[in-house]
């Protein structure tokens, strides 16, 4: 890779070609203040805070949008720049409510940090905050335009990263708003509830719908047996909210904290992930080996992806795995299998999910199949961010908790279950078991490196004792189009299928970077969380789902075998086309 030599405030810096001045300055240990720029997105250059001086240019230039070139001389800080940045920040503050104390982003707000760093102590410009009602139409996220600073990240995430086009810039001038086109509600829009807008919003203008009170109410209900499950990706991110190193694995501490919060039984969604592999893996073998059902088979663990498919690709429904997501499988089992075990009825159980995801809040009410126990299988979903707040409210010093185990038997998991949290994980876990289901043998090496990592589309060919299985993994919703177009073309022309098995996750990096995870997500953080996921895999004695003893027991006691009638009743679902306006 070619390199660029430039000077930042007189300090010589060498950076790879293509680096922007913001990052080049960081190499020189200089942080240029910014508000709208996010490393996940192309520079939108809106806020005007990262302006710098470049020798030879009479105008100030935005560092985020300026590519470093050889010999460039940049001044990032001087009295004039400080003054201009300060004025711009004060202008933005004049349109933003002074309600930091009651804001969901109190303490994590990027505007608040800027105001603090610039030592702004008074509101110099007359305040005019817009009075626009919040959009609370989805079960997942809340859009509060009053707090919007117009950075455009949400729109760019929704259109650019996710290819969803639920959000758009409406109106203009100081009336500019980010909202669904045509001023319909978010729930009527193509929104897939992935919450990436909320994860990227620098302020409190978009945030997860807070359900902590529902959880408190459930916990305090004496008549209920309180059960909780935690998703794979939560364990590698929650620690960040307590100042722990990114990539810390805090599974045992979460179990302990949940017990202290008042849950009676602590289960782990990783167990249900293993179960998903049994069902989905068997489904794959059924289609691939026995020719029963459409190929390629496409995973359905991600409710945002399911929503997207139902809206944009409903013609692909026959290709969807009918297996429910791990969260919903756990929901069905807790209120049937587990309830029977402890002598309770379904409605005597209060089940909470802790998820890295805002869409999971929507998944639990998406249709009748989510009530397979007769009542709503899962009572409430909170995100990692909400759990962090509950732990803080409970006064639990999380980082110093002793590790505790989960409860038997739906709390026992294998390495295959845990890697569901990262892109490629479902595929890898499925391949580990599919190999066994097809050949009857066990793999010597369970790792499938080719489906790991942040590459937007990963393709691999796996050799199962002479049989070639072609797989593809896509994450970041926008990447799915490429894969599906290839498939559609092959299906239309009768050409050989490019893939037999496809995994799709809506969020970049998979669930580890879900819309409900602690703030600050970028590729560096994603890599740290992913590394932790794969460490957790290696740490498990058993790394293939079909060897999970609790899974075996479940089939023996309750389900019979994968794809059995009982399985279908509780663990499978169906899909409905949900046409939207065409973009």
């Amino acid at each position, binding site marked *: 890779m070619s390199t660029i030599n430039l000077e930042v405030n007189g300090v010589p810096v060498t950076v790879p070609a293509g680096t922007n001045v913001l990052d080049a300055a960081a190499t020189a240990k200089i942080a240029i203040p910014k*508000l709208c720029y996010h490393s996940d997105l192309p*520079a*939108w*250059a*809106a*806020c*005007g*805070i990262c*302006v710098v001086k470049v020798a030879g240019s009479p*105008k*100030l*230039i*935005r560092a985020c*949008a*300026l*590519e470093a070139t050889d010999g460039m001389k940049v001044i990032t800080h001087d009295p*004039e720049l400080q*003054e*201009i*940045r300060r*004025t*711009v920040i004060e*202008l*933005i503050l*004049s*349109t933003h409510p002074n309600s930091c104390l009651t804001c969901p982003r109190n303490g994590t707000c990027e505007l608040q940090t800027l105001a603090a760093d610039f030592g702004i102590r008074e509101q*110099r*410009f*007359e305040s*005019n905050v817009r009075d626009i009602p919040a959009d609370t139409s989805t079960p997942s996220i809340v859009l509060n335009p009053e707090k919007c*600073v*117009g950075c*455009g990240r949400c729109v760019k995430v929704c259109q650019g990263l996710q290819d969803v086009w639920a959000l*758009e*810039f409406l*109106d*203009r*001038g*100081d*009336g*500019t708003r980010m909202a669904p086109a045509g001023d319909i509600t978010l729930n009527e829009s193509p929104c897939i509830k992935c919450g990436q807008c909320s994860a990227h919003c620098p302020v409190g203008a978009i945030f997860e719908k807070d359900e902590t009170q529902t959880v408190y109410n459930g916990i305090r209900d004496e008549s209920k047996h309180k059960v909780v499950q935690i998703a794979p990706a939560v364990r590698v991110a929650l620690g960040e909210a307590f100042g722990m190193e990114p990539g810390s694995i805090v599974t045992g501490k979460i179990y302990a904290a949940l017990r202290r919060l008042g849950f009676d039984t602590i289960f782990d969604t990783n167990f249900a992930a293993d179960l998903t592999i049994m069902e989905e893996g068997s489904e794959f073998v059924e289609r691939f080996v026995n020719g029963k059902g459409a190929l390629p088979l496409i995973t359905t663990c991600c409710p945002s992806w399911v929503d997207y498919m139902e809206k944009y690709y409903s013609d692909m429904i026959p290709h969807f795995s009918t297996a429910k997501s791990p969260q919903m499988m756990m929901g069905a089992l807790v209120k049937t299998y587990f309830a029977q075990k402890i002598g309770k009825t379904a409605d005597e159980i209060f089940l909470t999910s802790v998820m890295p995801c805002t869409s999971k809040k929507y998944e639990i009410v998406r249709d009748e199949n989510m009530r397979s126990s007769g009542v709503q299988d899962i009572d409430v979903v909170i995100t990692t961010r909400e759990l962090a707040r509950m732990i803080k409210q409970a006064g639990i010093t999380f980082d110093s908790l002793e590790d505790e185990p989960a409860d038997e038997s739906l709390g026992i998991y294998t390495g295959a279950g845990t890697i569901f949290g990262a892109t490629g994980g479902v595929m890898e876990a499925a391949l580990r078991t599919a190999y066994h289901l097809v050949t009857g043998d066990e793999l010597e090496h369970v790792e499938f490196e080719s489906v790991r990592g942040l590459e937007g589309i990963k393709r691999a060919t796996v050799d199962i004792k002479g049989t070639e299985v072609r797989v593809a993994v896509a994450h970041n919703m926008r990447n799915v189009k490429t894969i599906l177009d290839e498939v559609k073309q092959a299906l239309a022309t009768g050409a050989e299928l490019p893939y037999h098995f496809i995994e799709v996750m809506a969020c970049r990096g998979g669930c580890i970077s879900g819309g409900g995870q602690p703030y600050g997500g970028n590729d560096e953080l994603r890599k740290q969380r992913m590394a932790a996921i794969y460490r957790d895999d290696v740490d498990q004695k058993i790394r293939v789902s079909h060897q999970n003893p609790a899974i075996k027991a479940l089939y023996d006691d309750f389900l019979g075998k994968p794809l059995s009638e009982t399985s279908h009743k509780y663990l499978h679902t169906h899909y409905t086309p949900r046409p939207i306006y065409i973009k």
Partner: protein
Amino acid sequence: MAYQHYILVCGGTGCESNKADAIYRALQRETETHDLTHAVQVVKTGCFGFCAQGPIVKILPEESFYVEVTPEDAAELISEHIVKGRPVTRLLYKEEQSKEHARVDDISFYQKQFRVVLRNCGFIDPEEISEYISREGYVALERVLFDLSPQDVISELKTSGLRGRGGAGFPTWMKWNFTREQTSDQKYVVCNADEGDPGAYMDRSILEGDPHSVLEAMAICGRTIGANKGFIYIRAEYPLAIGRLERAIAQATEFGLLGKDILGSGFDFEIEIRLGAGAFVCGEETALLASIEGERGMPRPRPPFPSVKGLWGEPTVINNVETLANIPVILTRGGEWFAKIGTEKSKGTKVFALTGKIANSGLVEVPMGTPLRDIIFNIGGGIPDGKAFKAVQTGGPSGGVITAEHLDTPIDYEHLQELGSIMGSGGMIVMDESDCMIDVTKFYLEFTVEESCGKCAPCRVGGRKLHDILTKISKGQGTQEDIDTMRQIGTAMQRASLCGLGQTAPNPILSTLRYFKAEYDAHIDQGVCPAGKCKELVHFSIITDKCIGCGLCARRCPVLCISGERRQPHEIDQSKCIKCGECFTACKFDAVLRA
């Protein structure tokens, strides 16, 4: 001359909206009635420029200049002027000071003008390609296709010293050369016809009066930089210009001057029209490109400049209409000829749309370096109603004011900038003593605040704040601290806004603060609007001793709030008064007190 008479009817938008088309058809009808079609040709041309006198009909070879013509006058014009050879004197233009009926060449509105860009406007039928061709049209393109290399074209443009007429005055040859030097299979030529300054209509008039000059220039540009595709981005509210462009493109294609294998040279060039919805910001080149691409019209950061990464990320030359209209002449007459016109750093001519408190409002083209005084007083005929000149705003909402003491400044890019204004696209709005500078500035800010795309914070929020403060001052509620605040916000907007709209939006404020600070002080310190324009600060009453009860003021009052018996002093109902000042202007006895 094939015909004995040519009757030229102005077909610019101003005259069109005053029934020029009906006049044209009536003249044709009358010509037929008198069986004169072999001897008289009636032509509907582009704008004559002298809009204040429209609709205008010019008859050649006598060069008779008939003004404020109606369709009913057609019969008389034909039967008298054409048939009997007697001019219709009641319709002939007369200079204010003289009793003589002026021939076109004698009219002082035209005398000091020098028409390069508008060379064909008002002379040819813009809907007839042969008329353009007959005036050396497409000669330049032919030379570029067969005789000149791209490097020759660039050199010629460099010699000419032509700079962009869209505002910033960037040397055109450099823009073309940057784009030419880029390696790419696909390049584009874009014509910026999104003229949006309030009161400016030179680009529209060029497109209406001489569309082929722009098409020819675009093809020349395409050949020079290596592009086969051009776009004209024009606002949908210019239907006449769009219609004439469409017709011109069709005719040029039919004549083999556009499309595939132009004149057998092997060079292909096609032009597509894209309509804008009328957002001012889409005149900013990167927002314009975004709009052509189908995106919301919001500016993009520069660099990269369009010459490197423009339309759909490909190298793109984007020039405004007036710039392009200069190109064919430069290449037929030579860069050296062009460079003789104008000043050292600003070559050629500039078209201005002269409006506001000016006798001869219209479109004028003068050599760069012409003093403002000539434009306003000789060509423009000065301020009407005997009022005193106060200032002239150049550059529209992005510009600033120029005061009486600077009237002798030669107009070019550098001088205007020194005075705190800009050339802009050529809007020129004249103000007289009855204009309040705070009021005028507020108008401009209202415009830029309304037209801000909302993308970047300095412009989106800063513009609104400036406007709010101005409003406060106009109500007499401002403080001297507000002045400092406006300066500070203005500086932040100039320096940190993403595009030209935000960077220049504070200019009217900073400029009026420079030249008319006393007027701000009067509003702030004394609560007085010296011009009597700011409604909250002005109060009209009738001086009983002076009022003779003629009732003129009562008749003029649009809200009927003045009452009184005939020959008795009248009275203003203050609860209904909207402070328009009509009574003050109407009263011949100074009996209306404005305080």
